[in-house]
């Protein structure tokens, strides 16, 4: 307790700094780390865990690691004690394989070009206030088809079989296709489900509920095996294509439910105001209803996109070689046998960067779209 409080005349009280005991680093440490015996114990335990884990990890990843070697024996030969550090030479040496799969060497520029246009398409969609935004969106809408042509060939380009596609390329293809097609399909399904036409709405309900009731892995098995029974005999329908369709449908059902939630969050008054101004169904939805419903839905939508992106690794089970599949295959390579730690850390970092950027973008977008208080 302060012993004496200086008195000021009424109305002339100056701004004073807060008492020392409530600010400053020492106070922060005291209130946040050592406020009670339990808290103190937890702090000490955490410090001990950090101490036992972090230094060896840093040692392994950076200090003792080898970045340039011909194979794992060479790696270990370069260390004071074998296996003391990471052998990043493995990842570096396999990097091209991890990115392109078995895509023919002479055609790899097509993959690179696709990645570059992908970046333009993403920027075109995400960046606001871009001159000619409309054309950017058109371009982004056309992107999947441009990329399909570039990657698979035909129409003047040498054809590449989809079985040659693997690794990060495959992961990104499945992820981007699922994300970009499921959003529009999901929106249409959500609107269909809320439609006043009973036939339309029941078709949508059945579709959504069926898909949501089945694990993705089952749908992938259906894609890889059963679909051939339904197709006319002799017709070949590319496995990658089937997987893309299944993943998109799966994702659409979830997006539909999220968007439906967003639509339900809007007051009836918004529909009535739009109607009373003479806006028809499509204009009302495009200008009034969907912008608001989608805004509410951004966090859960991005959330499912993130899960989808990680779930693409499931295609491994039906024999497609995504980044995890290729990595595991490489682990059996006699030259690089058993470098699992390096591999999975690399894969984890890849997924983390992708998912974390999506998550940051969604937070950024939410902040940008918030317009004053909600009523």
């Amino acid at each position, binding site marked *: 307790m302060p012993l004496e409080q200086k008195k000021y005349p009424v109305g002339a009280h100056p701004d004073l700094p807060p008492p020392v005991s409530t600010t400053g680093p020492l106070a922060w440490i005291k209130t946040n780390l050592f406020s009670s015996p339990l808290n103190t114990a937890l702090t000490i335990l955490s410090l001990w865990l950090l101490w036992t884990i972090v230094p060896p990890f840093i040692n392994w990843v950076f200090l003792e690691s080898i970045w340039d070697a011909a194979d794992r024996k060479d790696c270990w030969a370069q260390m004071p004690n074998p296996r003391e550090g990471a052998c990043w030479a493995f990842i570096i040496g396999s990097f091209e394989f991890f990115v392109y799969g078995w895509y023919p060497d002479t055609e790899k520029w097509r993959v690179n070009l696709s990645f570059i246009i992908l970046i333009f398409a993403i920027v075109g969609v995400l960046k606001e206030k871009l001159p000619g935004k409309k054309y950017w969106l058109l371009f982004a809408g056309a992107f999947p088809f441009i990329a399909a042509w570039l990657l698979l060939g035909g129409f003047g380009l040498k054809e590449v079989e989809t079985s040659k596609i693997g690794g990060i390329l495959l992961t990104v293809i499945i992820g981007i296709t699922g994300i970009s097609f499921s959003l529009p399909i999901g929106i249409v399904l959500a609107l269909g489900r809320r439609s006043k036409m009973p036939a339309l709405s029941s078709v949508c309900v059945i579709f959504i509920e069926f898909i949501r009731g089945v694990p993705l892995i089952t749908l992938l098995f259906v894609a890889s095996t059963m679909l051939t029974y339904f197709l006319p005999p002799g017709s070949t329908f590319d496995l990658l294509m089937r997987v893309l369709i299944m993943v998109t449908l799966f994702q659409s059902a979830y997006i539909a439910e999220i968007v439906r939630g967003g639509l339900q969050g809007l007051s009836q008054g918004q529909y009535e105001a739009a109607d009373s*101004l003479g*806006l028809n169904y499509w204009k009302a939805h495009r200008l009034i209803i969907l912008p608001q419903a989608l805004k509410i839905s951004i966090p859960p939508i991005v959330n499912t996109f993130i899960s989808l992106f990680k779930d693409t690794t499931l295609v491994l089970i039906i024999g497609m070689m995504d980044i995890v599949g290729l990595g595991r295959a490489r682990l059996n390579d006699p030259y690089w046998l058993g470098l699992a730690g390096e591999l999975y850390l690399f894969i984890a970092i890849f997924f983390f960067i992708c998912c974390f950027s999506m998550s940051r973008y969604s937070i950024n977008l939410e902040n940008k779209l918030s*317009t004053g208080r909600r009523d």
Partner: protein
Amino acid sequence: MPENNLSTANAETIISITGMHKWFGDFHVLKDIDLEVKQGERIVICGPSGSGKSTLIRCINRLEEHQQGTIVVDGTELTQDLKNIEIIRSEVGMVFQQFNLFPHLTVLENLTLAPIWVRKTPKAEAEEMAMQYLERVKIPEQSKKYPGQLSGGQQQRVAIARSLCMNPRIMLFDEPTSALDPEMIKEVLDVMIELAESGMTMLVVTHEMGFATAVAHRVIFMDGGEIIEANDPDNFFNNPQNDRTKLFLSQILQH
């Protein structure tokens, strides 16, 4: 003070409702409604809660569908035909109790949206017109703000301006001041009185009896889904005919 004794007799009929019924499921909410509204006429509708006032005016722009009888607005009959409904809606403005502004758009965008997308007015022209109406409702300085940043009274004035931007021939008001704090009611009523003076055809559901006396040509009293009594404000308030009207008036005038 607006002209109260407008010679509505020889004005053109703009809304004509005959033998109209409406049900919500089994509930008979509007019963045999007959109502003629002349161009430039101002009608105040009052009645106890649940009597069907909102439903009646919402039938006029087809926010609710009637099941029997006819409603003709400005020469167009309301039927299932979506084209007719759109035509009528663009001629009839509506102001809601809860304002119903579009929260994701600025005030200016709220105002220009329908002119641009329904009337195909060029953007610059629509914005110029929107600013004129914002001047008229006395909040031009708020045009860049979002609805959530305005007071209730300001929001309701924006909502009125938004409807006016479509140059409607008829304005419907559903308890426009009921959601407002007392000190904001006057600013909205002032805008409505000004609108009345400009000769707009208005149907107003309200319990603001001062407004009714000052502005209305006719006051309509509804109860149980029927129009019980309709008269000019003077006779309506001072010489009510029906017992239910008398009871209602004694109740609301107590406050």
